């Protein structure tokens, strides 16, 4: 007779062991049905447990989810993913040089941000997590602006108040990144509720990691999104790892994260997050659903965090180094490149040229950003900025403290 024992989620492979992704439930490209975006929630249950894929092993687009994009859109997507990756690599190096204090790469999951941004309207509001720099780049926020934030220099959009990578862009409608996980989720729902209250057609989209789905704010967001049918797209970037914590600890073993959508009462889609076309198509589907008044969609984007969690992290201490090479969904940049070559729009030589151009672009931007100072060199932000923007008007006690600081107290 069996008795209950405490279940400890299984981690497929630890350092020194062979990578094992047999736990990842896969489906062939083109296999998933694409229902009308206005279907009742219960008709998305299968999609939430399945895996929406468009690109096959050869780079061919297959099935009903193929968004049939113009080559120019695909090319722009590739360029933005390459830009994201080159930018990440370069910033990682500058952190090692001591010029910035902290950095977070999105290596291996660039499609999650870039494809979604491409599928949404420019007026839609994006609520990113700290690994969504692709959203800023795809929306056209300048490299120099992002770099100045990383440097906390005189042109820092956050005026020296935020850890590197906590960007924002009001102009490009990308919300301020918080260091606290999942808080942006209910905020995105509220933003979408406001749009609906005002009768506006913009929607909100938010991203969190699969680890953050354990937070109360995830559940608050889903509940509010369901109750009010808020025009919001809630993305869960399942990159398998929350620092050293495997996705099983967020509850990914028994059921997909996407399945929590229909479980709560909103549509759910499980998507190949390294497939630019699939991410684009799923986002497009969810956007159409939201704009038609059918409410929110929870999209799980299955991907792999190919790099470290941050510059403070060393993943070789908790997972095999070779994992990314064995990752069944491949590299998003390679897969879109392969597709573009496959459809005759792109070549290896063009890709090499693109890489060189982007490297140059990032290097040039870095020089420009450095001209506005770094944390340790050159011009510095006025420390008085510490006291502004706490409130709209500076209260008397802060004025006093500001004066005290200036006088060296």
């Amino acid at each position, binding site marked *: 007779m069996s008795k209950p024992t405490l279940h400890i989620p299984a981690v497929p492979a630890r350092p020194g062991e062979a990578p094992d992704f047999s736990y990842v439930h896969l489906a062939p490209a083109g296999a998933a049905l694409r229902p009308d975006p206005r279907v009742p929630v219960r008709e998305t249950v299968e999609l939430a447990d399945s895996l929406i894929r468009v690109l096959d092993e050869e780079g061919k687009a297959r099935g009903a989810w193929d968004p049939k994009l113009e080559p120019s859109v695909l090319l722009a997507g590739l360029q933005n993913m390459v830009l994201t990756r080159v930018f990440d690599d370069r910033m990682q190096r500058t952190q090692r040089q001591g010029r910035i204090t902290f950095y977070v790469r999105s290596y291996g999951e660039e499609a999650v941000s870039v494809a979604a941004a491409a599928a949404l309207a420019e007026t839609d509001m994006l609520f990113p997590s700290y690994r969504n720099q692709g959203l800023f780049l795809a929306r056209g926020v300048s490299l120099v602006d992002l770099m100045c934030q990383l440097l906390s220099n005189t042109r820092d959009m956050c005026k020296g108040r935020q850890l590197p990578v906590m960007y924002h862009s009001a102009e490009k409608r990308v919300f301020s990144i918080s260091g606290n996980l999942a808080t942006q989720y209910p*905020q995105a729902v*509220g933003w979408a509720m406001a749009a609906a209250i005002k009768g506006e057609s913009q929607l909100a989209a938010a991203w969190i990691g699969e680890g953050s789905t354990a937070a109360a704010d995830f559940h608050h967001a889903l509940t509010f999104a369901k*109750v009010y049918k808020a025009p919001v797209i809630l993305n869960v970037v399942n990159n398998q790892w929350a620092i050293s914590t495997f996705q099983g600890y967020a509850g990914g073993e028994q059921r997909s994260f996407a399945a929590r959508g229909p479980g709560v009462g909103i549509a759910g889609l499980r998507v190949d997050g390294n497939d630019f076309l699939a991410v684009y198509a799923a986002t497009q589907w969810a956007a159409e659903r939201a704009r038609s008044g059918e409410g929110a969609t929870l999209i799980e984007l299955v991907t792999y965090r190919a790099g470290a969690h941050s510059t403070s992290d060393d993943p070789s201490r908790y997972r095999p180094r070779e994992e990314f090479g064995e990752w069944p969904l491949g590299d998003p940049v390679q897969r879109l490149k392969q597709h573009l070559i496959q459809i005759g729009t792109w070549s290896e030589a063009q890709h090499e040229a693109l890489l060189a151009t982007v490297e140059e672009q990032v290097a040039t931007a870095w020089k420009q950003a450095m001209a506005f100072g770094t944390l340790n060199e050159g011009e510095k932000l006025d420390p008085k900025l510490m006291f502004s923007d706490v409130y*709209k008007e500076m209260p008397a006690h802060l004025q006093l403290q500001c004066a005290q600081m200036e006088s060296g107290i």
Partner: protein
Amino acid sequence: MSVTSTMNMVQALNSAMDVMLERHASVVVLGEDVGYFGGVFRVTDGLQKKYGAHRVLDTPIAEGGIIGAAIGMGVNGLRPVAEIQFADYIYPAYDQIVSELARLRYRSAAAFTAPLTIRTPCGGGIRGGQTHSQSPEGVFAHVSGIKTVMPSNPYDAKGLLIAAIEDDDPVIFFEPKRLYNGPFDGDPDKPAQSWLGHPMAEVPQGYYRVEIGKASVAREGSAVTMVSYGTMVHVCIAAAEAEGVDAEVIDVRSMMPLDMDTIAQSVEKTGRCLIAHEATRFAGFGAELSASIQERCFWSLEAPIERVAGWDTPYPHAFEWQYFPGKQRVQRGLRQLLNIEG
């Protein structure tokens, strides 16, 4: 001058939201039971019927969700007035308030802001036990980036709530629930009073503001300054009168920003200061008041500053009147303070 009517605090708060819902399409009210039912204390009574379910929203029972969503609404151009049904239930929203609401303007260098008002009934004296009686104003006054206010009468309640809704900074608006229907002098054995006939219950029907960040002198005097807010303002006045002390009672009204000028002016005049609040004493808001008064008025002090506050325990149901810092405790504090010859 607009037409006035006699209102209790519930009606005054209701009127404030009514006025603001009427004036600004961006104002929305949300919270548990606030819509169809009109709130467990009836503060939002009739508003949904008048302005519709899209502007007066009943919400799921998730305080973190209410505040998280309200922040998003604020970012998207609305002026949400969120109700947390009891201040005791505000803690699930603490992260959203402290890490998000309070910091948003700062962290984004004013690129994003959320002009949110959080209304929440606080305080004891209603036999509510420890989950319906807390006064967590000090917890929020401590947080940079939000304003914290607490009215003590219907007139201030309406004027301050209108000012809070119009404020571009987030405001936590504490409503001393014991004062909803009448002033309370801290003596539970006396029959309950209504607001009827109280001068501060004459409330303009229309729009007016009571500026956030200004304390008021609730009673003039010269022998001692009593600094308080909410229910305790009335207890202080009653204690001063029972004790026959020529006390000046300052109603702080706004914990942050704090009107130290009004407080200091009084303490410099009287040389003696008693601070009274319902919240627990240790590291309570009275500690900030005491420290600030000491810094500003040290050379005027004839005696150590006296604090009368709730005991440092949870709020007990059966021992409510032993816990509540009522008239007797304030009187004792006054005597202690005045017995010290300067």
